[in-house]
């Protein structure tokens, strides 16, 4: 009953949720990149990047993304200094 109400309000059917989850899981399975492997890669990458950049570690997002016929590793790595620069530019302009 609760599920039913939740569905009613969120508008998302559990069948659709199943499909989305499956697609994501299979991207990892098929490319032999388990989430824990991706996490380990992230840790390694952060320690490498830190040698060169001041990065905002908490804000890092890394995931596999489906392209038409291929899969890409997409990383979003915010820099610590970037916020100040943007604010600074705004003030001057």
């Amino acid at each position: 009953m609760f599920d039913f109400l939740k569905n009613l309000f969120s508008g998302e059917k559990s069948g659709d949720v199943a499909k989305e989850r499956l697609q994501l899981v299979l991207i990892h399975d098929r490319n032999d990149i388990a989430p824990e492997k991706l996490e380990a890669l992230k840790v390694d990458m952060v320690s490498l990047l830190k040698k060169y950049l001041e990065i905002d570690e908490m804000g890092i997002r890394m995931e596999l993304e489906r392209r038409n016929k291929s899969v890409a590793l997409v990383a979003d790595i915010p820099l610590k200094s970037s916020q100040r620069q943007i604010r600074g530019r705004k003030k001057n302009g």
Partner: protein
Amino acid sequence: MACRIIVITSGKGGVGKTTTTANLAVALANEGYRVVAIDGDVGLRNLDVIMGLENRIVYTLVDVIEGTCRLNQAMIRDKRTENLYMIPTAQSRTKDAVSAEQMLDICGQLRKEFDFVLIDSPAGIEAGFRNAAAGADEALVVTTPEVSAVRDADRIIGLLESMEKAPISLIINRIKPDMVKRGDMLSTEDVLDILAVDLIGVVPDDESVVTSSNKGEPLTFSNSSRATKAFLNIAKRICGNEVPFMDLSDDQKGFFSSLKRIFGN
């Protein structure tokens, strides 16, 4: 006709491999083909009870391999139809009692005598599955419309491809049309979007599957439930006939189907 050796497999356990093997074996035999079904699940044999032949076992596949008997002594003839045999496996042994080479050799011998050899594979991706699949040319992958089962099916399909089995066809079992209609179950289309194989059949979740397994009488002997029809259609498609997929979505709870159920379907 040239013999076709088909392994029925799934990855995830309990999705309907043995049920499918038994029903297709009977259906193909009823179509007039010479058929043998092999229980490839050493240590967890089930095909014998699903087919209702458990009281007729004298020798098993393992006895053949160990030289205790000849191959045809382990073949149990199903008297309910023409040209149907079942080869049981050993219950009190482990997977390593049958190797891939031995399976290949047995299949080679059966190829001369039969039109279809159906092999019921154990669940999993380890030795048991590999040995059961070793002698097969083709594969039927059974899945239910659930995340875990489809995921495991994807894994098995990858392995079957690397073993060069072809064609690899998909059976979606235990679909519940009313749940699909509500959007609460993966639909046939959803599963096909995800798995890169051809669909050969969709079998509804059906109580008749349970009653038939209670009796040891595969549905395709005589029953007329929707699951029966689905299995008969799959057998026809295996033989190369184009059979339209049943519309499972029509209202099962309607007046006429209630009547049909009351009068023993």
